């Protein structure tokens, strides 16, 4: 095996230490690829209505049946993956980035800045996510942007607090003093000494939150606050499907199952990432 192949292999092996996390990682990748390839993979366009075959059970032509407007459920779910996955991933990424930044600065600088900023951040934490989303939708209007914003703000406090607490305790460690005595400034200390030690738990929480974010997006979609019809989202499909739970259960089954599976895969993969970031475990395996 060439040296490059060996390195790639050991890096991948490092990232996926257990079978479940490896399997979940691959499954997630497949989901993402499906979402990207939606226009080519979906058997029908997501908005093609055909009332004559409305609410039909699964058949050869429509593997997962049709909804109340005669649209193919499978195609709508495939396109819906785009919405749900992209919204949650973007929202969480935004939340993590801003949260780490604010948390690091507040934790390091402390004092009045810390108190003021954290009061504001804690305020967002005290709002239930739905109320927050409602507020934002009321201001900006419905659509994927407001969903992304709502989810980001809902999780911001969590990442900020997590980062801040760790930074506060880490900055008193002697190795920070050592860097200071070498002449290091706050940027070097935060970026090189503090954040790398803080980032591991934050990333894990981020992964776990992505699972929750998908649920939140589904909830917002359920209330009609997310992307507008006819663009499909898993949450909206749950919402309309729930009305036909007993008459046409297949409408709600597939999106529901995929939400659950996505969350499970993300959580399992997240555990693998945690293991990968653990330096002691890494060193032991070499």
């Amino acid at each position, binding site marked *: 095996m060439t040296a490059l192949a060996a390195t790639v292999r050991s890096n991948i092996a490092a990232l996926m230490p257990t079978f479940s996390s490896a399997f979940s990682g691959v499954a997630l990748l497949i989901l993402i690829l499906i979402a990207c390839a939606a226009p080519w993979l979906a058997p029908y366009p997501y908005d093609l209505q055909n009332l004559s075959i409305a609410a039909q059970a699964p058949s050869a032509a429509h593997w997962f049946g049709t909804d109340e407007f005669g649209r193919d459920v499978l195609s709508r779910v495939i396109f819906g993956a785009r919405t749900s996955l992209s919204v949650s991933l973007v929202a969480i990424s935004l939340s993590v980035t801003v949260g780490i930044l604010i948390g690091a600065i507040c934790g390091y600088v402390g004092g009045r800045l810390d108190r003021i900023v954290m009061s504001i951040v804690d305020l967002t934490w005290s709002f239930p996510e739905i109320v927050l989303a409602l507020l934002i939708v009321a201001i900006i209007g419905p659509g994927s942007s407001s969903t992304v914003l709502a989810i980001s703000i809902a999780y911001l406090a969590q990442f900020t607090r997590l980062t801040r607490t760790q930074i506060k305790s880490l900055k008193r*460690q*002697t*190795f920070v*003093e*050592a*860097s*200071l*005595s*070498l*002449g*290091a*400034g706050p940027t*070097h200390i935060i970026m*090189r*000494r503090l954040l*790398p*030690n803080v980032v591991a738990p934050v990333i894990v929480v981020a992964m776990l939150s992505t699972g929750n974010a998908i649920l939140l997006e589904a909830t917002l979609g359920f209330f009609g606050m997310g992307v507008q019809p006819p663009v499909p989202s898993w949450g909206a499909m749950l919402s309309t499907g729930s009305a036909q739970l007993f008459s046409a259960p297949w409408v709600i089954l597939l999106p529901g199952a995929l939400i659950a599976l996505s969350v499970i895969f993300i959580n399992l993969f997240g555990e693998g990432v945690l293991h990968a970031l653990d*330096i*002691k475990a890494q*060193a032991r395996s070499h």
Partner: protein
Amino acid sequence: MKPILSVRGVGRTFTSGGGFLKARRHFRAVSDVSFDVQRGEVLGVVGESGCGKSTLARLIMRLLTPTTGEVLFDGTDIASLSVRALRPLRRHFQMVFQDPYSSIDPRQKVRDTLLEPFQVQGIPLTLAQANAKVDALLTMVALPLHLADSYQHQMSGGQKQRVGIARALALDPSLIVLDESTASLDVSIQAQVIALLQDLRDRLDLTYVFISHDLALVQYFCDRTLVMYLGRVVEVLPRGATPIHPYTKALMASVLVPDPHQRHEIVRITGEIPSGYDEPLGCAFAGRCPRVQPRCRESLPILRSQTDQHAVACHVHESTVLAPEF
């Protein structure tokens, strides 16, 4: 010869508490400390908890700013410099810390820990130069070269401490402050590290400020020793000299010599170190001193030189002829 380090009237007070109805409390960690350190000297600083020696170390290193006084490194007052002006000067004075476990970033390999000084100071190194530096530093502290790729948790306490010393040496400083650098090591490893420090001092022309609670070690290693009590220097003791201050005598008597034929009654003083918040009017040691007199509680004794190297801050010593007793 101009001293490499000159500390003049340095004091540091910490304030704590203070809220709506509560008054702020002031804690004088260090008060009115003055001394010079000559090039090539090993100066010891010894004392028990609350004496201010760790705070003094950080004041010298400008990790803390003095509330009063000046810290002159090679003639320049580093206490009053701006952070920017201070940075290039920092390469000349470095510190080795007490706790080997927390003084190295757990996510850094030894190699990166040793190269960080150059990174921070903005000194560019090619890959070849960097590797050469790392190897040279490891050799200097007698560590095997393969340790460069290890992490902190893979090394023993003694090895970690050597890495700390190597890091302090990276920028070629002239002064190194060692804050209880051997306190957490086994005795046999401590002796190794002390021998290494002595060797390095000879080879690299270093000056040390060696802080410790272990009087026997300090007497062995250091040319002169400052004895501190509650933030003040009570005695400056040259190597081999007999202590004069009652506190220093008590410290000396508390040293348990590993010789069963030299058993003596250990305890000289009773009581414990008073809290630093309630600072007494006169001599801080008056409450526990076996030779206390009324004058001691009224006014603060000043550090006065006995001989060229030996100085004491004690009223009793000045007023009476000291009978050999201890």
